[in-house]
């Protein structure tokens, strides 16, 4: 009886998940560019890569709250993340991610005053 209930729950979970997956794909969240008005297309592309790579291991929020640390530290972070096991980040990706982070850093004027 419990097994049947379990299978029913699994089927329900699978159906809900499939529906939500479709919804998620249709309206991709903007992640690192949330709140950034009219970013250039190349930055949009770079941040799409950064969103995808960062979210493999942690939420994008962890990147957003670190704004204001300066490009030197971002360089160190990106290199550290690339070297994490199964990060999925290639050497080429590091330049792309860095391009996105530079834009995000520059857009955060409050962060430069030390209010990241």
């Amino acid at each position, binding site marked *: 009886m*419990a*097994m049947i*209930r*379990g299978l029913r*729950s*699994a089927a329900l*979970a*699978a159906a*809900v*998940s499939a529906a*939500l*997956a479709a*919804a*998620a*794909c249709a*309206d*991709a*969240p*903007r*992640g690192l560019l*949330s709140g950034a008005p009219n970013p250039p297309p190349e930055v949009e592309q770079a941040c*799409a890569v950064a*969103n*995808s790579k960062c*979210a*493999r*291991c*942690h*939420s994008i*929020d*962890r990147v*957003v*709250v*670190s704004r204001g*640390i300066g490009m*030197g*530290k971002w360089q*160190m*972070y990106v290199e*550290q993340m690339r*070297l*994490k*096991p*199964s990060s*999925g980040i*290639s*050497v*080429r*990706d590091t330049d792309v991610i860095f391009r996105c982070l530079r834009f995000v850093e520059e857009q955060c004027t409050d962060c430069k005053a030390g209010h990241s």
Partner: protein
Amino acid sequence: MSSPRLVVACAAALAAGLTAGSGVAAADSLERNFAGSIQLDYMAVPSESIGRKIALDAATVEVSMKVTQDFGDNVSASIKLCVACHGIEAGMAFFDLRVADELNFRVGRFTPQFGSFPIRHDPANHRTSDKPLPYDMGRMLRFSEWNMGILPSPWVDNGIELSGAHYFTDDVRLDYAAYAVGGPRAANDAADFDYKLSRSGDAYYVDNNSRPSLGGNVALNIVAGKTTITAGASGTFGTYDPQNKLHYQIAGAHLMLQLSRVFLRAEYLARRTEMALGDDPAARFKYGPGKNGKFDPYFLKQGFYTELEMPVTDRVDLIARWDGLRRQGNVLRTSELRSDSALLRYTLGTSIKVRGATRIKLSGEFYDFSDFPDEIAIHLAVTGAL
């Protein structure tokens, strides 16, 4: 950790010594970063009048604080303090020496590479309040009867690890790791790992049987447009009793499919563990000998999870998880499990961004036990990260 301040002081002294001694780390190449996370989780067990009888329910807190210091391009040191149900522990205290992408030496106290989930074990990095059953570290219902999962995460141990990554092309990467660590511990007459001994400073932070446990991990990552596939396998083996007689082997396989920011993850772990039969196995164990008249000293514990994680908006992520455990083999007379026991769990959850890196996690879990009444657990947590 009996003296976390001592660990911090030692790491600082080592770091200072290395910097001063080598003379290669110029001031402008020194980079230090701090990362921290916290989760306060409340677990309710509405199917029980007093949940504490079967779980560490109600509120638990997990805090971690990590400092990493780079010394030039090739050497770094990391130290991480964790506060959780078990008190204050040193989750990391190690040095990395990177020769190339393909070769990194890690020495100290760290989590050896095994599977996929341990990389995301920090509660700020995974979307549910608790861990998948194979990696459970005491938050599952009936954790004492099951003796938790198969390899509680994070598994922290002393030793050395060689690891690296090789890019065949920009889109195809192979990661590997091989390590020797102290390994799990238990008493001489053990029938399973004793996780308290494995993390207790009372028995010193040294190997309990003069023999290291060995292990490794390999994973292949393939990127194709917005899709990434990661497939890997892990293994570790050794002995866990002071007499060096009781063997164990753990094997695992993992698969992750990423489509943009939608993730489908699956892992399987199996642990074969030798039990001490004792002088009188008939009195010690619940079941008698096999057809050959001998008691089988091994039990097999298997576990899996599959998890779908997807962002719905910039603030809301949804998670659906199905995981389970199965234990086959003889059990002690005092155990409430049988010779073949199973557990399936179904979880639906959400993680909602409040502000910055502060999130609310809400999840509901249905436990389907083969040996106990089914149960429901509800988690509500707040997490934050720096």
